[in-house]
């Protein structure tokens, strides 16, 4: 018999590598969790506790502070409730349309409604501005109308634009798993149309309705970029108020108080949502309904009209941004007399020019480079922390049941609050540009873990055992088995992290240094400055960001495991 490794070799190697065998399963798990938990402790739980501590400071509890908090809270609830109502108004018929009817371009329209959800807030805000704003397409092209959308209505519409896809997804999937024969049976038993709906269709849909309503409300409640960029100074939600108090007024105790109020609210909504999601998931029946073509002329007319409305609502803002970025509609600052209106590439070429040359002015191309390098570091960091956590979560023990919700917590806390925590805890390091990617990693980590975890769980343990019995050490098993199989999921997770970092606005606005702006921060600066050229450059940058985001969405959809990563 031939032997490749004689027993003496094994014995000598044993002493070195036998360590792996001696590592108990528990110790292995703790090693896996070491990095991600340390990261969360330093960059999430410590800042969070500092925010808490600051709230307990006596100076936070003043009558004036409570007045500000109360008015912010009231407006936050008001706009969130109204936005949610409008979202349901558009979302429910859309969900019904997609679940029950078959028409040309159905899947394209469905994809179109899903795009906004993944877009950075500044892009959505810039899109609405480019369509409805004072310098937007409608106001400048349709001349006699002089149409400017009221800022509050712009906020509401942007929220509907963002979140309709949630209703379509959650309610739509519940609807399509509902047997239409039930309704027919109700009719045959003597129920009229309304009673058929009320008693047979609605009850099984209720968990899905509640879940989607709560989720939409949660997103509207914590909305920041849209309100700051579209609402101007007069509309302040809790999020915006935290930002103003922390950055503009420098009242950190008040900002902390607001943040805690916000956290308590979102926590309550998240808990309620989790409960309804669990129930909604139970209710889904395995049989699904095939969508059908519309039959009567009446039905056809209504459906065509609704499809037209839906597609224009989603297409117009998305299209108007790139269109506005290549048309000069107003004079640049300081430009008098001869102004060439119409098609231009100036806004894009200007991005590469440092026109003002001041110390604190950064050319847009520099912001783009900043964003790209931040995004690169975010990808590396979130994979570094996400991989071990996803590995541990893929084969959960009792420990993971406790840690799973803990590691998802940053998802429930707002970006502005994360930024505030960073300012309070690490104020002296704010001059370092390194803090930004850590904040981005915090936001991206739950998404990265939720993308990797199902992919890791899908690899049979047998493959690892086979590799091990063929002589692969634990690291070689990871390198030769896990990693190649996980390449697709890794790519999807990286793209997630990359896109989130590129578009992150709330936390970045609070902690980024003026000399290291990111693309969204630069867009915000340009948007708020006077002059056609600044505005044009804002739309040009937002268009580039939109293109990057849409490309990323396609990559993620292509490489993610099907049926995974719902949040």
């Amino acid at each position, binding site marked *: 018999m031939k032997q490749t*490794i004689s027993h003496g070799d*094994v014995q000598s190697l044993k002493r070195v590598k*036998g360590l792996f*065998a001696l590592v108990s399963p528990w110790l292995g798990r703790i090693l896996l969790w070491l990095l991600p938990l340390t990261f969360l402790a330093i960059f999430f739980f410590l800042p969070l506790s500092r925010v808490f501590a600051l709230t307990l400071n006596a100076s936070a509890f003043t009558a004036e502070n409570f007045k500000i908090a109360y008015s912010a809270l009231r407006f936050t609830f008001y706009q969130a409730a109204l936005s949610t109502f409008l979202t349901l108004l558009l979302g429910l018929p859309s969900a019904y349309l997609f679940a029950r009817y078959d028409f040309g371009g159905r899947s394209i329209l469905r994809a179109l409604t899903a795009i906004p959800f993944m877009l950075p807030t500044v892009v959505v805000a810039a899109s609405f501005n480019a369509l409805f704003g004072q310098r937007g397409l409608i106001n400048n092209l349709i001349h006699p109308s002089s149409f400017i959308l009221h800022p509050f209505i712009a906020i509401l519409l942007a929220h509907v634009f963002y979140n309709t896809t949630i209703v379509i997804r959650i309610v739509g999937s519940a609807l399509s798993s509902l047997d239409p024969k039930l309704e027919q049976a109700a009719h045959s038993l003597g129920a009229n149309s309304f009673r058929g709906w009320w008693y047979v269709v609605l009850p099984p849909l209720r968990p899905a309705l509640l879940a989607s309503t709560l989720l939409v409300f949660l997103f509207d409640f914590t909305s920041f970029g849209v309100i700051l960029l579209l609402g101007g100074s007069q509309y302040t939600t809790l999020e915006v108020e935290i930002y103003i108090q922390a950055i503009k007024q420098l009242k950190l105790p008040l900002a902390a108080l607001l943040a805690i109020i916000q956290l308590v609210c979102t926590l309550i909504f998240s808990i309620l949502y989790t409960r309804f999601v669990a129930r909604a998931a139970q209710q889904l029946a395995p049989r699904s309904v095939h969508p059908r073509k519309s039959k009567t002329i009446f039905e056809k007319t209504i459906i065509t009209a609704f499809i037209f409305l839906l597609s224009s609502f989603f297409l117009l803002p998305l299209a108007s941004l790139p269109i506005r970025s290549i048309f000069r509609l107003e004079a640049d600052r300081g430009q008098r007399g001869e102004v060439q209106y119409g098609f231009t590439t100036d806004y894009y070429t200007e991005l590469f020019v440092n026109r003002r040359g001041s110390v604190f002015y950064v050319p847009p191309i520099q912001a783009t480079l900043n964003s790209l390098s931040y995004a690169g570091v975010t990808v590396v960091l979130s994979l570094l922390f996400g991989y071990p956590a996803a590995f541990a979560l893929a084969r959960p023990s009792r420990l993971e049941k406790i840690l799973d919700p803990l590691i998802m917590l940053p998802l429930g806390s707002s970006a502005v609050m994360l930024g505030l925590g960073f300012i309070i805890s690490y104020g002296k390091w704010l001059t370092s540009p390194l803090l930004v990617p850590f904040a981005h990693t915090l936001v991206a980590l739950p998404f990265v873990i939720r993308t990797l975890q199902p992919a890791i769980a899908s690899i049979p343990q047998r*493959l690892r055992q086979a590799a091990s019995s*063929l*002589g*692969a050490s634990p690291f070689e098993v990871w390198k030769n088995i896990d990693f190649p*199989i996980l390449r697709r999921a890794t790519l999807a997770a990286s793209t997630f992290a990359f896109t989130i970092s590129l578009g992150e606005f709330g936390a970045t606005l609070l902690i980024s240094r003026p000399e290291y702006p990111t693309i969204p921060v630069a867009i915000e600066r340009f948007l708020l400055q006077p002059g056609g050229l600044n505005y044009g450059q804002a739309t040009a940058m937002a268009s580039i960001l939109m293109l990057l985001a849409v490309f990323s969405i396609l990559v993620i959809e292509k490489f993610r495991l099907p049926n995974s990563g719902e949040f």
Partner: protein
Amino acid sequence: MLEVRNLFKAYEDKSLLNDISFTVAEGETICLLGASGSGKSTLLLIIAGLESSDSGLVLFNGLELTNTPPHLRDFGLVFQDYALFPHLNVNENVAFGLRMRRIRQVEIDERVATSLELVSLAEFGNRKVNDLSGGEQQRVALARALAIRPRLLMIDEPLGALDRTLREDLLNELRMILHQAKIPTIYVTHDQEEAFTIADRVLILHNGEIVRAGTPVDVWANPQSAFVARFLGLGNLLDGEVIAENRFQTQQGLFTVECDHKHSNGDKVHLLVRPLATDAQRELNALNGIVADMIFQQDRFKITLENGFYIYLKEAQEIGQKISVQVKVECLA
């Protein structure tokens, strides 16, 4: 070579392996035979180092392996579901263990080719493993385990998922390969025919214990316990009571059987009635009954009697007919 000494393993308070001890000698093929859930696969994983035992030792050439991680044990393992790496092709799968051993590429190519030839898959090197049939996948898994020239080969239910004719072909092929390779082998199966075809020695596992060990001929001739006789389907089982030396009272009447162990009157014993008719002159016992059913089996007839017993006869019998056949009866524990 391999020695397993007093292995115990429990899973969630349920005993899975209970004091398992056996050895595998150089070039020997032993077969672990047992129903599913009898702990066979767990035993393989423990020997491979992929699972830990609660107590007991695994030794190879007298050296204890507890602290040797699986990748340094040099034991080839062929999994029940093959566990071929889906992202690698056939060549890369077979080369995997050699790559892990940092062997020169030239030699890897050579050994991969030899291994694939051994399992008659020489032309399949560049195929994707997912495009192969079950039998081909099984052979790639075997080639992959053989390529590393393991000190011990372990095969877990390799033919379970295959259809009957393919199984017989592969079984014969496997037998030849194992003889050629002269690698000590542990072969796990629930199929006694497979076990008896391939094994030099059979270990029968029941509820985590080895209930019988021996060569196929020995086990067949001398099952020793009612469980083994029933599990192997050796014949009709009878409950008997000792009424005098070598005399047993049963539902079928009195039997005279020579017994190896001593019994006292009133002891309960199991008797095994082999279903073959024997020479009437030498055998003292007869099986009587009315023919209830008859099945033609190529060179013989399987006759089932109304009392539930069965027997093989050369000639056809008429249903409803009363017959009496001289049979061999053995005494079990």
